[in-house]
């Protein structure tokens, strides 16, 4: 048997598609709308959430037998907040430029409902290794959607990817802009993120009819 049993693999892979936190469970939508106007912050947010959720799940799982159930939500909140502050401080000390890019987003991780959701639903009832896999899997599922949405919003809204002008220069009218293409300014506004997420959900459901609820 390898490092991951079949069940462990499912913990990682399920949240990527058929149990995706954003498109199926509809959690973490707020940050998905707020930060996906460009590709780079989307990726950085995805990486930070992988770290916080992976580690946070392990910590909660290790403490699961001693946490008093009356104050478990507060305890979970403290764990997330502590991890986020540590990430923020370490970035500021060792990767200052990166931390400036992310400062707001790092703080926003605390409010991400996927994290509290996984602590409550999984880490409180499972061992550390399984919780770690579950955390990483869910964070990856969240990150994948973020990156897809960020890709389309930056490409169609600003005509760039990672800041590179892949479609030509909109002011100088080169590349695609020479033949009359225009950026869709609506793409950079948050409502369009909702529509892009909606399209992803639509595509996913039409490909897998098991996801459609019966009325």
């Amino acid at each position: 048997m390898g490092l991951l049993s079949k069940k462990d693999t499912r913990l990682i892979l399920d949240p990527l598609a058929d149990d995706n936190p954003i498109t199926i469970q509809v959690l973490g939508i707020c940050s998905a709308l707020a930060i996906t106007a460009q590709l780079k912050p989307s990726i950085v947010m995805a990486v930070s959430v992988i770290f916080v959720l992976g580690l946070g799940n392990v910590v909660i799982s290790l403490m699961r037998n001693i946490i008093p159930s009356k104050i478990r939500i507060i305890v979970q909140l403290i764990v997330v907040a502590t991890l986020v502050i540590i990430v923020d401080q370490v970035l500021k000390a060792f990767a200052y430029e990166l931390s400036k890019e992310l400062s707001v987003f790092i703080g926003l991780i605390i409010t991400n409902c996927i994290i509290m959701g996984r602590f409550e639903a999984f880490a409180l009832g499972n061992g550390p290794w399984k919780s770690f896999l579950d955390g990483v899997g869910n964070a990856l599922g969240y990150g994948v959607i973020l990156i897809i949405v960020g890709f389309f919003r930056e490409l169609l809204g600003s005509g760039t990817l990672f800041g590179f002008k892949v479609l030509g220069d909109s002011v100088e009218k080169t590349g695609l802009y020479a033949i009359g293409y225009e950026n869709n300014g609506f793409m950079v506004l948050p409502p369009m993120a909702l529509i892009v997420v909606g399209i992803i959900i639509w595509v996913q459901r039409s490909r897998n009819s098991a996801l459609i609820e019966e009325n």
Partner: protein
Amino acid sequence: MAVNKDKNSYTMIFAVIMVLVVGTLLAGFSSGLKPMIKANEKFEKQQNILYAMGVNDNVGSGDVAFIATDRVADAFNTYIKEQLVIEGATSSQNDKAYLIDVKKEGAKAKKAGYQRKLPLFIGEKDGKKLYIMPVRGKGLWDAIWGFVAVDKSMTVQGVYFDHKGETPGLGAEIKQRYFMDDFIGEKLLEGTTYKGIKVAKGNNDPKNMIKDDYEVDALAGATITGDGVSAMLKKDIAMYVPYFKTINN
């Protein structure tokens, strides 16, 4: 172990221990990393000042590239010839002027009778004397700030803007080169009257070819951040105008 986890006393003890552990951990991290964070902030300020006066690693029309952190301290000493602190009509040299906290000075200046300390950096690049001023104002969500480099006649030679929490893709674009580079060559004075530079919508000059209209093209979707930039320039640079009048006489 027969501990009753439902008892209030258990909950209380758990909470106290948790708070102590977390508090110690965070305090340890914070004080352990503080020197490094402070040093980074100092370097950043030097990088910003140098960026505004055109000392940077920009390539072509690409992204903003500061002079590398390991070279910044030397470059700062080489390019910045004088650091002044202006207090009212007098000015004095102070090589720690770049550490003056513009935010705190702005807050103190609201009290009557306080003489605000204005830092001014005089640099020299390619034989040209440049005067660099810090500015600070409000954007849509939070603070915006920057440095403006001008020559003796108060024509802008370079700017650097930064922000705490403007919307990515909209207001946050004020720190992109295509916005900041528009300011270069713009005049701040009309004759001897201070005009400032307006971030204008509906600009007839989107490529910013006309340099004496006291306007640069606004960012679409970032009206309030743009207005914040106009207001910040108008208010903060105006405080330096008397100094420029004295050196021009």
